[in-house]
């Protein structure tokens, strides 16, 4: 089965990102395909590389990054939602005159079209939110 996953909430605030992660990980272990994980609304905050969670708790951003590394996952952060919330890559920094970037290298910022495409190309869209 080819899945698309949508994550609507940021790390830690809601369980959405955790649930989505375990769903994705399990699906991949079972041999399914994840076409894309699309982060929308506050979900874009999963894409920052600057979190420092307590040592004795899970590192949500790194966990996604490791999963992406292992399975060549496409982790996409919505550009419009990212602009609103200050998740920035080099291109966005230059375009919008920002003096820093904070995107994690395993995530990429792209348009809402990526969500639509994922919904069209995959067989199941699974949404995690609040």
């Amino acid at each position, binding site marked *: 089965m080819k899945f698309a996953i949508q994550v609507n909430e940021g790390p830690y605030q809601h*369980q959405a990102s955790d649930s989505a992660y*375990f*769903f994705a990980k*399990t*699906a991949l272990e079972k041999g*399914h395909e994840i076409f894309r994980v699309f982060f929308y609304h506050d979900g874009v905050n999963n894409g920052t590389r600057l979190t420092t969670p307590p040592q004795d708790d899970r590192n949500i951003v790194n966990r996604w990054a490791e999963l992406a590394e292992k399975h060549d996952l496409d982790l996409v952060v919505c550009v419009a939602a990212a602009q609103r919330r200050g998740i920035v890559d080099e291109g966005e920094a230059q375009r919008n005159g920002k003096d820093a970037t904070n995107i994690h290298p395993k995530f990429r910022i792209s348009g809402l079209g990526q969500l639509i495409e994922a919904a069209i190309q995959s067989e199941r*869209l*699974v*949404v995690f939110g609040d």
Partner: protein
Amino acid sequence: MSILHTVNKSTFERNSLESCLKFARDGASVLLFEDGVYAAVTGTSAEDSVKAALDRLSIYVLGPDLKARGLSEDRVVEGIRVVDYAGFVDLAAENDKVQAWL
């Protein structure tokens, strides 16, 4: 066409489960997870509604979320099946689409 409906919020906080049960068609599946698992245990004000739904829907609850919240499986309403994340993935694959009631 069968739908897997997912409900992740507590039925005592939101009307997501109520709406889900209202619109879910006979034969559909419902997965309670995250805070949605509270509706799966006996003794709540939601129990009657959930039991009535079991007559026409397949209802599942995510075990890890139950356990995290200190709810043992023997408290789960009879007829609700406890599944793990593998079961969640299977349900998503076996049904025609997934509908999230947030």
